[in-house]
């Protein structure tokens, strides 16, 4: 009987350990085991992406509608080209929508916010969002502020 309690407790221990791994995977790292199937790709060019990274959130009105897939430098235009994967059920982004790089909180992660436009046509797979606003770069802001001070 003693050996059975040992076996049972070892079994429980192993289960708890693996449960911990699953909790870490799903709850802590937000690993998505079932990525939303499909979705479509949008592109946007930014003059400066700041600290944006792949897997960053793409949201509209604060609701996540996709994530950043890849970031490249466009060799002709010499600006950053961001590839975004938008969930398939979000098929109502109008062509005159604008994209901007935002920061969650003062020190938080950077993400892309999409502000919907009024056009009736909607963006499809592979389209570009032309209306973009770059990330706020603190140094630029400080520089502008100082210039204003001087000119006054």
């Amino acid at each position, binding site marked *: 009987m003693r050996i059975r309690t040992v076996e049972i407790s*070892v079994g429980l221990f192993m289960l708890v*350990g693996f449960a911990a791994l699953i909790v*870490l995977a799903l*709850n*802590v790292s937000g690993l998505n085991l079932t990525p939303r199937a499909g979705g479509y790709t949008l592109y946007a060019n930014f003059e400066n992406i700041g600290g944006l990274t792949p897997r960053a959130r793409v949201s509209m009105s604060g609701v996540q509608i996709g994530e950043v897939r890849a970031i490249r430098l466009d060799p002709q235009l010499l600006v950053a080209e961001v590839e975004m994967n938008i969930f398939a059920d979000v098929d109502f982004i109008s062509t005159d929508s604008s994209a901007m790089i935002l920061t969650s*909180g003062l020190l*938080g992660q950077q993400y892309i916010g999409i502000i919907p436009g009024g056009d009736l046509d909607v963006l499809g797979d592979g389209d570009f969002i032309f209306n973009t606003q770059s990330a706020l770069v603190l140094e630029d802001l400080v520089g502008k502020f100082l210039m204003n001070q001087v000119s006054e």
Partner: protein
Amino acid sequence: MLIDKIQRLGHRTLSRCAAFGRSGQILVQSIVARPAPLMMLPLLVKQIYFVGVLSLVIIVVSGAFIGMVLGLQGYTILVDYGSEQAVGQMVALSLLRELAPVVTALLFAGRAGSALTAEIGLMKATEQLASLEMIGVDPYRRIIAPRLYAGFICMPLLSMIFAVVGIWGAALVAVDWLGIHSGAYWANMQQAVDFRGDVINGLIKAVVFGFVVTWIAVYQGYDCVPTSEGISQATTRTVVYASLAVLGFDFVLTALMFGDF
């Protein structure tokens, strides 16, 4: 006088080398050269019980307290910058990358490592190891191998349990007591933590530490002077060497995983 000192230094260096060789021999004899037969399973279960299950209480309790302290400290520091929501991210990253594997390994060395050394040392002192050999059973295979495997298996599991309990403890402090929005706590954490980069790397650390600690513990037990004094010295050495090795390896692994070179 000087010659004498040099001579002693040389002697010590040589005996250290020999000790290292013997520890390698134990490792090779018990696992590399002889893959474990299935017969070992009951022995392994028993060792996992001693090494893992019995360490569970200390791991859970310390995990909870360390998480709570992190939550509290993180909050008081971050609130100055108005970004106290980032406490979840700070707690999760520091636990997953560093504290869970390292602290678990240190506790593991103190709890399980010293027990392993004392147990094997006692077996040596009471001639149980010699007796096994005379019965025609390889003590490496029968005594050492299951304990080594149990160490490899238990350390990562314990480390993950530690991390989960710690994150939960921090949530208790930050969300329930200090009033951070629970959505912000968890969402910030999920944003910041990468499964491959943080969880898996932490797990790799835990496996390496488990290997190092158990190896040292088993070697010290097997190589100790078979007297009560020798066993107590070997137990102390296990804790000291294992802790130092864990901290040293932690730096190397961190540099390899998170450093840019």
